[in-house]
């Protein structure tokens, strides 16, 4: 087509015109806020009211306050919060994979109506509000709640809703596991099961076939699912707030929520938002680089 070299005038404005409202929206309400966060984090503090005063010119940014916060994250009081957050997320993702993989595997091996029904059951949690699902567990885990009473029958008597690490980790698993199962299922569903039959025919035991064929071939799904649930977990604070509300289980999200919403030190909150976003951007780019390498090897 000759349109490629010299597009007619209406074509040059028509498609961008359609994209214009959405592009403007993203620029004004996504890109500008991202920049504003930096302007507040590297801005000044009003000497009398201690309010954050954003500095819009990047040449006048000051990094002394921000580096103080960073120092606190690396070697100060915020370090334990960051380490705890990482520990919770790693534990919750690992548990989610241990629970979710077998389920996704089972789903992928089902057929027809049975598979449709099972998939529908897996999708239901998506349509139940996250807060409703947390509310359900708060009801169950209160001292007189059904789950607490049930566990007491077995001699397990604990304060579940008051700074219990296990409750927070299981709460994260409960909240985000549905989001892991479906991408895992999608990658296992595309798997060529004849390869496993071939491996079995050639003398591999079923566990060998799993380790050397199924697992490597579903690695992309595992990685995608992991990133998909780990990113929001790192920013989660409400699971923790509802199931614990104790400084003993505080995560980085709780600190951001506190500094941005409840304190006068908005600047500190803005810096923590930047630290979190930067950290997650690193995780994300690591994932994208790995993905590109795996794709290159495959082709």
């Amino acid at each position, binding site marked *: 087509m000759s349109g490629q070299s010299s597009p007619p005038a*209406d074509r040059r404005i028509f*498609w*961008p015109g*359609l*994209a214009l*409202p*959405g*592009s403007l*929206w*993203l*620029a004004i*309400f*996504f890109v500008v*806020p*991202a920049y*504003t*966060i930096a302007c*507040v984090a590297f801005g000044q503090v009003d000497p009398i009211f201690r309010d954050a005063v954003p500095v819009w010119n990047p040449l006048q940014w000051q990094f002394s306050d921000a580096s103080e916060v960073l120092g606190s994250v690396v070697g100060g009081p915020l370090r334990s919060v960051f380490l705890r957050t990482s520990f919770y997320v790693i534990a919750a993702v690992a548990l989610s994979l241990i629970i979710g993989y*077998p*389920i996704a*595997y*089972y789903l992928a*091996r089902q057929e027809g109506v049975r598979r449709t029904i*099972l*998939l529908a059951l897996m*999708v*239901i*949690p998506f*349509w*139940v*509000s*996250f*807060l*409703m*699902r947390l*509310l*359900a567990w708060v*009801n*169950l885990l209160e001292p*007189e709640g059904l789950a607490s009473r049930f566990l007491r029958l077995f001699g397990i008597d604990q304060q579940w809703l008051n700074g219990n690490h296990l409750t927070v980790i299981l709460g994260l698993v*409960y909240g985000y*596991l549905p989001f892991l199962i*479906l991408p895992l299922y999608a990658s296992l*569903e595309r798997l060529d099961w004849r390869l496993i039959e071939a491996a079995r025919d050639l003398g591999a035991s079923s566990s060998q076939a799993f380790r050397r064929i199924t697992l490597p071939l579903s690695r992309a799904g595992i990685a995608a699912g992991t990133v998909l649930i780990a*990113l*929001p977990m*790192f*920013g*989660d604070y*409400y699971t923790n707030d*509802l199931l614990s509300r104790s400084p003993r289980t505080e995560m980085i*999200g709780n600190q*951001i*929520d506190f500094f*941005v*919403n409840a304190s006068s030190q908005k600047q500190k909150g803005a810096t923590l*938002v930047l630290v*979190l*976003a930067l950290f*997650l951007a690193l995780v994300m780019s690591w994932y994208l680089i790995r993905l590109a390498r795996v794709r290159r090897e495959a082709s």
Partner: protein
Amino acid sequence: MRKRSRGLSFVTGAYVVWSLVPVLIAVLFSFNDGKSRTVWQGFSLRWWTGDRQQSLLHDPTLRTALVNSLVLALGSILITVPVGALLAVGLERWRTRAAATVNWVNSLPLVTPEIVMGAALLITFTNLFTGIPLGRPAQLIGHVTFSLSFVVVTVRARLVSLGPSYEEAARDLGATRAQAIRLVLLPLLTPAIVASCVIVFASSIDDFVISSFLSAGASSETVPVKIYSAVRSSSSPALNALATVMVLLSFMALALTVVVLSRWQHRHGGSGGFRQAVADVTQMDL
């Protein structure tokens, strides 16, 4: 082989029970006759309609939360779906470096944790766009911003599967570019647009973080924000009733969409019917 499969079916069954039964119990307790959300004292509609002060029907704070959630969800649909669908069509056909940039920016909200977006929007509304008050206007903007990418992804997936040939045929037959879109492309995009509506609706009424960061106190509490603020205080089963209504609304929206879509498929000679409609809405290959 058989034995392992039995283990797997047990794990799957246990997961289904674990994921769904707590919610069912919470729904059940909205019908509790006592004030407890943990000890069953018999069936009643007290917390739904009976109690003159505290039931869902009579407690103004619960009603406000419900109305706020619904207004935000409907407002989000009205803005996000047209803007997002146009953006998807524009990006799919525009294909320049500028389009690639917009496309990249558009994918960022999908991987940004809500707390980052919520904090950034709050700080922007209090420092820069001070003309936009916190509360419903700010919340609406927040909801549109995080759901725009969902719509673009959904509509683009359909555009890719349709290909450019329908539009080209319309153009060859003399339609202008705008006519080709209005008369040919838009009707073909119906499933994706309907699916977008229900996705925006669901993600809006489910949202907690953005609504909470951008709220202006009790008058702009949405249902999730209300649940958050009331759950650990001594609240009554009316809270469970409120949460139950939201779950019912989600599923009604889903059911309505599936019915509309399967009718549409049927009328347009689609073969998939009900199953195809479910697949369109849930973005899954059933």
